[in-house]
């Protein structure tokens, strides 16, 4: 009798586990290198926040899709007045926040007014300064009037800093984010992981996953170990590119290599002699061998760029030939400018490996043409203080990851201090242009202008590398914005 009952127990246990194994996997564990400081994307610059909440927990009036195109999100449709100053958005009806309160035009007005308020701590306040008034016409209609036409307004509204929040829940948004997205924030074990679960009352297509856990693993070796041991199912922004061939050869994993909006540049302090002479800047540009840097510092991942624009963008102009690797030309240009024996300057490097490793390679390349650099390795806080606000540098390497940010060249007090009235006028024209062809023409002219002025040394576009379990479908290959969009991700097993 005892034998039979044991056998029965074992058989039923086997049956249960077999049943469980055949059910589809509905959970996912995502590895992330950086932990977000909090979960309010409208209150800080940390991309890690958007990586967790963008499109999953919070939504804006518009949103980016995997290719970077702008899609309607909480705004179903919109009309733009002929003078480009008035945008009338028609919001979706019946949308609820995760705490049950409804999303309507009052929430949109609250979110936008909060972002552009004087005491706002929104890191991208510039996106909202053009807004003159926000009017809640009725529950599902919002009218926004701009002080000047802005062709990029719909694009700006898709950023993580422009998501719609509710006044009822905004006070705790940092630790308990309440949005309208297909996932609900569930738990945050500080330092270890964040869990989100499926929103059963989502207004749109429900998510295919039941839950997702973001685990924070900063050390590249630990990241490798976690993926290999299958402790995490996917790792977007995988920090150890030297292991990629091993993952590519392993049938358990898929490796996605795509592009990002990160233009990595050798920034030159345009107001510091001798860099105020365009010939010297041109000499620096011709001294750089981009492919050597990509191969040496980035393990071959990255696309060379000749100007401050993303190569995957249809309006991109390939100007790499204008600053082709030509050390002899560099030396003759330096001699023409009055520096036949070269000169010494500083190269200040922030922590990322593209800067530290790339900096060593660039230092060697510049030495070939007679420019000696003193390398200082800085932490981010020091870099912000010395380079970004103090203008105390000759050269630095940094990656600008905001999309469509060529407008920074119109700010004469931006850290590289490029001051060209012609370019500033061009940007004014760009803001006013709403027609796609006009915008293309202006954007291409802008790219040519900063390449002709050799404002900075344009290195390469950062690649986005994701390592994931081969059975996962729907992860973004490119990173048009910082996000881990899980809305369409599922397991194919």
């Amino acid at each position, binding site marked *: 009798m005892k034998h039979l009952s044991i056998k029965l127990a074992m058989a039923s246990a086997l049956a249960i586990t077999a049943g469980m194994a055949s059910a589809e996997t509905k959970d996912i564990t995502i590895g992330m290198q950086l932990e977000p400081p909090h979960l309010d994307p409208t209150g800080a*610059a940390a991309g890690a926040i958007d990586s967790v909440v963008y499109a999953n927990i919070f939504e804006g009036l518009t949103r980016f899709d995997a290719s970077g195109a702008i899609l309607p999100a909480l705004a179903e449709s919109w009309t733009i007045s002929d003078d480009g100053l008035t945008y009338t958005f028609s919001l979706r009806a019946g949308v609820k926040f995760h705490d049950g309160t409804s999303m309507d035009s009052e929430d949109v007005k609250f979110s936008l007014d909060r972002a552009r308020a004087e005491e*706002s701590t929104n890191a991208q306040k510039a996106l909202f300064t053009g807004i003159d008034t926000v009017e809640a016409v009725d529950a599902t209609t919002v009218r926004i009037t701009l002080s000047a036409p802005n062709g990029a307004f719909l694009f700006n509204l898709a950023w993580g800093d422009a998501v719609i929040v509710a006044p009822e829940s905004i006070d705790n948004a940092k630790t308990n984010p309440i949005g309208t997205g297909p996932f609900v924030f569930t738990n945050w*074990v*500080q330092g270890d992981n964040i869990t989100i679960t499926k929103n059963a009352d989502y207004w749109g297509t429900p998510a295919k996953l039941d839950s997702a856990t973001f685990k924070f693993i900063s050390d590249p070796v630990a990241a490798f*170990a976690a993926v290999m*041991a299958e402790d995490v199912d996917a790792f977007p922004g995988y920090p150890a590119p030297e292991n990629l061939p091993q993952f590519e050869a392993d049938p358990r994993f898929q490796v996605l290599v795509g592009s990002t909006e990160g233009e990595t540049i050798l920034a030159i302090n345009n107001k510091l002699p001798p860099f105020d002479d365009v010939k010297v800047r041109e000499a620096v540009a011709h001294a750089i061998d981009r492919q050597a840097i990509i191969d040496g510092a980035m393990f071959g991942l990255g696309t060379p760029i000749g100007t401050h624009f993303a190569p995957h963008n249809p309006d991109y102009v390939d100007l790499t030939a204008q600053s082709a690797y030509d050390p002899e030309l560099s030396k003759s240009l330096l001699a023409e400018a009055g520096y036949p024996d070269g000169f010494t300057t500083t190269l200040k490097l922030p*922590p990322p490996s593209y800067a530290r490793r790339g900096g060593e390679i660039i230092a060697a390349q510049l030495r070939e043409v007679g420019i000696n650099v003193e390398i200082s390795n800085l932490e981010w*806080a020091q870099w912000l203080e010395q380079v970004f606000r103090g203008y105390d540098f000759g050269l630095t390497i940094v990656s600008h990851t905001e999309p469509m940010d060529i407008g920074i060249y119109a700010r004469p007090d931006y850290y590289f201090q490029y001051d060209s009235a012609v370019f500033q006028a061009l940007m004014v024209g760009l803001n006013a242009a709403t027609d796609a062809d006009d915008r293309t023409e202006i954007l291409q002219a802008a790219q040519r202008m900063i390449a002709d002025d050799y404002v900075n040394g344009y290195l390469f576009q950062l690649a986005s590398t994701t390592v994931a379990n081969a059975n996962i479908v729907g992860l973004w290959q490119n990173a048009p914005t910082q996000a881990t969009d899980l809305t369409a991700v599922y397991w194919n097993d």
Partner: protein
Amino acid sequence: MLRYSLKRLLSLGVSLLAASAVIFLAIEVVPGDPASYMLGINAQPDTIAALRAELGLNVSAFERYITWVTGMLTGDFGISYTYRTPVVDMIGDRILISLPLAIYALTLSTLIAFPAGILAASKRGSATDVSIMGATQLGVAIPNFWFAMLLVVFFAINLRWFSAGGFPGWDKGFFVSMKALTLPAIALALPQASILARVMRSALIDTMNEDFIRTARAKGLTKRQALWRHALRNAMIPVLTIIGLQFSFLMAGAIIIENVFFLPGLGRLVFQSISQRDLIVVESVVMLLVFAVVVVTFIVDIAYAAVDPRLRGRS
């Protein structure tokens, strides 16, 4: 004994106060503005000023020091700049990992070191002694993070007996959590055990050469009895010192191991807070670690007095 303890307590208090001043001054000197760091390069100057006001960074350093010290005495460590949550909660979460890990590693370390050291001392000169000493030599020389990575590759990736790191949380069960701490504890314990075994062995050998041991042997005790009954107690003083130092090291210095196993412990917290310029967290955690070290030293001092009667009753 009481006077001895009270004197030690007083010096503990003075040390803590001096440490707090040094820590605060050292961190004030560090350049870098937390608000700039948090808002990034696209932020406008008025936004940064608004955040600085919100964080309370515009008051004088002396005021902030007084607020901090008086706050600590009442258990309020302030609010983290980056995370905007009370520092005491953050430290509380992390201590629940760092403290058990330190205790676990220390226990493993003593469990390995004591038998090894005693065996090596009692069988001095023999093959056992030489091989144990060789093993400890290796243990001291191997960097603990490299050993940790080896453990991960072997036990987590190849054998899949353990996960590669991470901590599931105490609410998931005691044994599950201890399992997650096992590989890190072994990685931490091995070099410490090697050091402790060597200290144990040399302390025992020194003690075994003392006159009173000769008297004990003359009395008729065997070598083993003399070792266990008399020598061991006297050899404990240097061993206790080392154990105290090791505990302090394990609490504060496990940061590299925490990185390899991505454990959310105190070391990781301090490291992240430094780069984020979250000064309040850095100051508070360092102060806590100083407190832990001072308390451990105090306990070791009391333990000395317990072990060695010559140290008590100095009236």
